[in-house]
């Protein structure tokens, strides 16, 4: 059983459309991170959210941390082909310093 559940597993959209990726857990996290992994590369951190209810924006990407610190979402506005990649959420519960990763969402943005 995975600590973090991501949905959907795959997402294919047209350039200019919006998309949302979800990351859910039954555990409370001290913080949640979102990484993007491009083919042939390692994951790269996009953002860390640390406060329940927090919203962070990174250009066309909006990240939200749930009030109860158990879930997070990533919303991309007007997606572009350069947004294509594997999006991974990761978090560490309060009582465990290990970072656990979700299974990832593969996003494909078609030109």
């Amino acid at each position: 059983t995975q600590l973090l559940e991501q949905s959907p597993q795959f997402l294919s959209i047209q350039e200019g459309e919006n998309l949302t990726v979800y990351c859910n857990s039954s555990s409370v996290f001290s913080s949640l991170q979102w990484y993007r992994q491009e083919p042939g590369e390692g994951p790269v951190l996009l953002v860390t959210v640390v406060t329940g209810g927090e919203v962070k924006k990174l250009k066309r990407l909006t990240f939200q941390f749930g009030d109860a610190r158990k879930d997070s979402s990533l919303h991309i506005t007007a997606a572009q082909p350069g947004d294509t990649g594997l999006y991974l959420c990761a978090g560490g519960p309060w009582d465990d310093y290990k970072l656990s990763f979700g299974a990832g969402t593969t996003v494909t943005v078609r030109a």
Partner: protein
Amino acid sequence: DTAVSQTPKYLVTQMGNDKSIKCEQNLGHDTMYWYKQDSKKFLKIMFSYNNKELIINETVPNRFSPKSPDKAHLNLHINSLELGDSAVYFCASSTSTGGGGETQYFGPGTRLLVL
């Protein structure tokens, strides 16, 4: 100026062989990790070292043995390779013991294929 580097990038070998993957970070970080990413892209931690001491040792076959000669290096040795070991292995580092809030910096990965 690669922050976290791994060698080799590709490794193709026969079942039963022994192989090593090397990792180096020039970020001055105290903690290094090995992850395995399977064909479904699930990234699972294997080991973590903090200042050359083992702090995470997940349920990994004892054919896998990490070695940290100093805090900038963490190597992974695999004995008696099996078909199921085929995966991408990522090395990562962070400023402290990871967990919530700590950014992990990943290497480019080593693609291992066992035939």
